[in-house]
């Protein structure tokens, strides 16, 4: 490659680099700078060194917040992955009416996360939610269903609501991966005597693993910093803060306590953790690839 070509390439990259600078670096730098300021709307804004980070890292609530964040994000991603793979495999086999079923699967994607939270909050509502009502009317439960009174069931509820909104995305990605597998491989497997399970286990999943991994990574990163569903279903982190995750922790410092300095330091920690998870998965994918 000639140097002149590389220079031309550089020139062509300039608009992209400028957008990247404006879109990513400047906002991130502002957040980073604010994280070193005492900016609490009560006292004059002054540099405060690492005090905001110390406030967060020394907060006795932080380990629990992080644990809940991991449980929530991995729980939601796990449920999304499992359901998406099942749905994608089914959709891949449906020939008649495939467009209808695909549209049906994609539907929850059209619902904004915050609305999906309100929808599920209503469905699980302890006093007038249809799920509890249905279970009681079908005599499957004798007591009203209240998922919010136990930490585990409250967490399960928000995981279900979050996964419901994320399943269509991963289903489409997985379906695209499955459809890119050449049909002759399935034919060969059938000739070799493989049944449906073996075809799935040894043909479909290994060959579609890369798009599935990428989709899973994106889902995980989105879930990790999610707040919409949790906030709308369990405002303030629910009873006893059992669904209080890093996103709600950040939201509280930003909009409730109005301490922008500490909120910025939580943002930086959140970004580092999200990057960490992303880097791990990318490394793992590349290594495997």
């Amino acid at each position: 490659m000639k140097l002149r070509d590389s220079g031309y390439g550089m020139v062509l990259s300039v608009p992209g680099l400028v957008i990247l600078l404006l879109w990513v670096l400047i906002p991130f730098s502002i957040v980073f700078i604010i994280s070193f300021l005492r900016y609490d709307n009560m006292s004059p804004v002054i540099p405060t060194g690492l005090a905001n980070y110390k406030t967060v890292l020394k907060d006795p609530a932080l380990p629990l917040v992080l644990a809940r964040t991991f449980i929530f994000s991995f729980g939601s991603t796990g449920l999304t992955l499992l359901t998406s793979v099942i749905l994608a495999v089914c959709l891949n086999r449906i020939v008649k009416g495939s467009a209808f079923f695909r549209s049906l699967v994609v539907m929850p994607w059209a619902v904004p996360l915050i609305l999906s939270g309100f929808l599920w909050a209503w469905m699980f509502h302890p006093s007038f939610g249809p799920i509890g009502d249905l279970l009681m009317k079908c005599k499957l439960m004798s007591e009203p269903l209240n998922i919010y009174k136990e930490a585990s069931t409250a967490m399960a509820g928000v995981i279900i609501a979050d996964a419901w909104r994320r399943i269509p995305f991963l289903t489409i990605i997985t379906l695209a991966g499955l459809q890119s597998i050449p049909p002759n491989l399935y034919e060969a497997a059938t000739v070799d005597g493989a049944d449906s399970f073996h075809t799935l286990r040894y043909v479909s999943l290994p060959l579609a693993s890369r798009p599935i991994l990428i989709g899973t990574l994106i889902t995980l990163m989105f879930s990790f910093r999610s707040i919409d569903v949790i906030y709308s279903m369990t405002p303030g982190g629910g009873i006893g803060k059992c669904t209080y995750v890093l996103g709600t922790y950040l939201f509280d410092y930003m909009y409730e306590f109005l301490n922008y300095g500490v909120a910025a330091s939580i943002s930086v920690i959140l970004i580092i953790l999200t990057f960490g998870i992303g880097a791990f998965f990318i490394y793992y994918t590349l290594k495997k690839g």
Partner: protein
Amino acid sequence: MKKRNVVTLCLAITVVLALGFTFPAQGKEAYKYINWNKPKPMTERLLADKYILPKGWQKATKGVKELAFFNSGGLKHDIATAINMELFEKKTGIRMKALPLGSAYTFPKFLSVVTSKDPSVHIGFIRAEIEYAHVAAAGWAHPIDELWPPEVQKLYSPGLVDCINWGGHYYGGVNVVQWYVLYYRPSWLKKAGVTKIPETWEEVYQASKKCREWAKGNLGKDYYGFTFGATKAGHIHIAMLSALTYSQGGRTLKEGKINLDTPEFRNSWNYLLRMINEDVADVACLGYSWNDYQKVFGMGKAAMMLGYSVYAVKFAEFPEVTKDWAAVPPPKWDAKQPDSNRVGYINYDEYVINNFADDKHKAAAMLFLDFLRSKEACMYELLVEGNDSFLPAVYEDPNIVDKVDWELAKKVAKKIKTAEPKKMGITMPEVRAASAKTARIEALPPGATYVSDILSEYLGKTIMKKMDPDKSLKEALSKIEKFTH
């Protein structure tokens, strides 16, 4: 002319010119041109069926064409504000511009205005219990002491007047006010064998318990004796705990600082948890928003609730309770206390004037705030929108319904694309008037959101982790102590 005389003359001219330029610059602020007690005393102006503008308002607001203010939500949900904007415009020629914001953003947005010393938004929207003291203490709100002389204070609920007195100054005007009342289902109480309408909190507990027991066998396991909201969102757990504390004569503030380590607050904490622990109220109450628990009552799933008077308007939407509800003023703590202890909480959203607005706009904003607390403006809040009246005298006027300009109300409803208001009287005026006299709210100091957060967390933990209520309160208070000191 002699040279000396020329010098003296020049010097004199210079002094005159300098004085001429200096005095207007140091002249009184525009709002001081308003004589709030002319043409009639302030109390008379406010109590008149049609608000009377004070003398000197034209001079004070000369050149002001528009006032911009933050409003919580769109005007579609705020017909009384829209009507009052229109009335104010008619009276003064000053256009009112509402800037609608989602409820979560009214305070942060006002903060961004005042911290950047932006004079373009003249009036901010503030929640009394958590945000007011923050704004007042920081010097972001313009004091309006001129509007609150002692004789005017007597016209309003003492609880409200105390709340807006911050460091001896007054900053607040009214947007919305709603008093707590005790709602109950007469038929349910009767069937459960409750013969006396509860007047004390212990009686509420005993009646709720009977109602719950009866409901378990006759209505279903999801029918409870009492319901309340205690979610952190909107700090409604503070409202409930405060109401219980006030009914004992206690307060949550002492010398401007949060003071929850009191027997009254401890009783309130234990009472609320006892309601849940002994299955009289649903544990779900801890997660209920203000909207949830009134809906639970509306759907007929609770025999009693302590809620804002405005909820009564919504019962028309629920056939289960439409013809089977009643209300009394909030209970007192025990029977020995006088009825002045029947104290409830106040939902109070207020307007404050941006201290960085220019003098003339401040004068116009003061005029608007003065108008909003008048009888004329308050009757629209009460009769057209269904909120309470900031001015309790409105409840005492038997002809108040006919004083409302219903044609104007219909015109404004059409303009803001909301349902046409129905001409109807005041729902339970005596109960509301009685609640207004005793109701209370305290403006908690800056940082109170964190205290609210801790209380909410420990209320939940006590139930979920089956903690001893005394122990959980001790832990919560120790955490609060660490934060506040």
